[in-house]
């Protein structure tokens, strides 16, 4: 995979993770906020997801789906960190262990 495609993969994953955080920020029922505020968080999330989607389409032309898809599964660890940082979600040992095993599995799938 050359650097350009790697960058495309980074943009695709980064905007996808940001999109998830925006979605949760807008949808979470423990936070009080006006309807338009929720809509703008979700809207921003959709924009981030759309960017991610177009980068993904470009990648699909070049690679087999079962080869590039696993890269996206490294996301759980980044999503967990982003959720802890920006949404103040609590992480516990079991959760982090499970996520690490998932990422290890993905790493194996990615290099084979």
């Amino acid at each position, binding site marked *: 995979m050359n650097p350009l495609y790697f960058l495309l993969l980074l943009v695709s994953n980064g905007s996808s993770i940001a999109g*998830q*955080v925006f*979605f*949760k920020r807008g*949808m*979470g*029922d423990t936070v009080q906020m006006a309807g338009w505020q929720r809509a703008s968080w*979700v809207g921003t999330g*959709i924009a981030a*997801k759309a960017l991610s*989607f*177009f980068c993904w*389409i*470009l990648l*699909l*032309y070049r690679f*087999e*789906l*079962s080869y590039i*898809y*696993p890269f*996206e*599964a490294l*996301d*759980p660890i980044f*999503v*967990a960190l982003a*959720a*802890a940082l920006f*949404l103040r*979600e*609590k*992480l516990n040992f*079991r*959760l982090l*262990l*499970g*996520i*690490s*095993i*998932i*990422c*290890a*599995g*993905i*790493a*194996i*799938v*990615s290099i*084979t």
Partner: protein
Amino acid sequence: MLVTSDRDTSAGRLDHPPKRAWFFNPYLQIGVSVLLNAAAQIFIKIGTGHTTDQSLFSISSLTSGAMWLGIVAMVVALVSWLYALKSIPLTIAFTLAASTQVIVPLGCWIFLGEQISLLRWGGILLVTLGILLVAQPLAKVEERL
């Protein structure tokens, strides 16, 4: 916090009344979202295969029916996902959604004829184990309801 009244089929929501129809269980909606997303990936891969256009954003693939099916599946998956996020923490929801990583390679193997090596099967197994590890305490919470 724990509601013990009726042990009906819906079970499993800590912060909503158990009277809601089973279909609105947020964990079920994560499952719906995962399946539709996996289907969308496969449809889109089929859709991109229908064109030789290599230009940016690949406009000509929009003439493919499979591409549109993929897009529709993605939109419905998003609605289910947003609904689930109302009550499930993002970390948990996203980890459960990692099951997409198992379903997509399996789908590619079954429907697109892509090859899966023995080592890759091992990776798929690890992902499954990790998800079970995270999901097990959730299942216990559901049983208690």
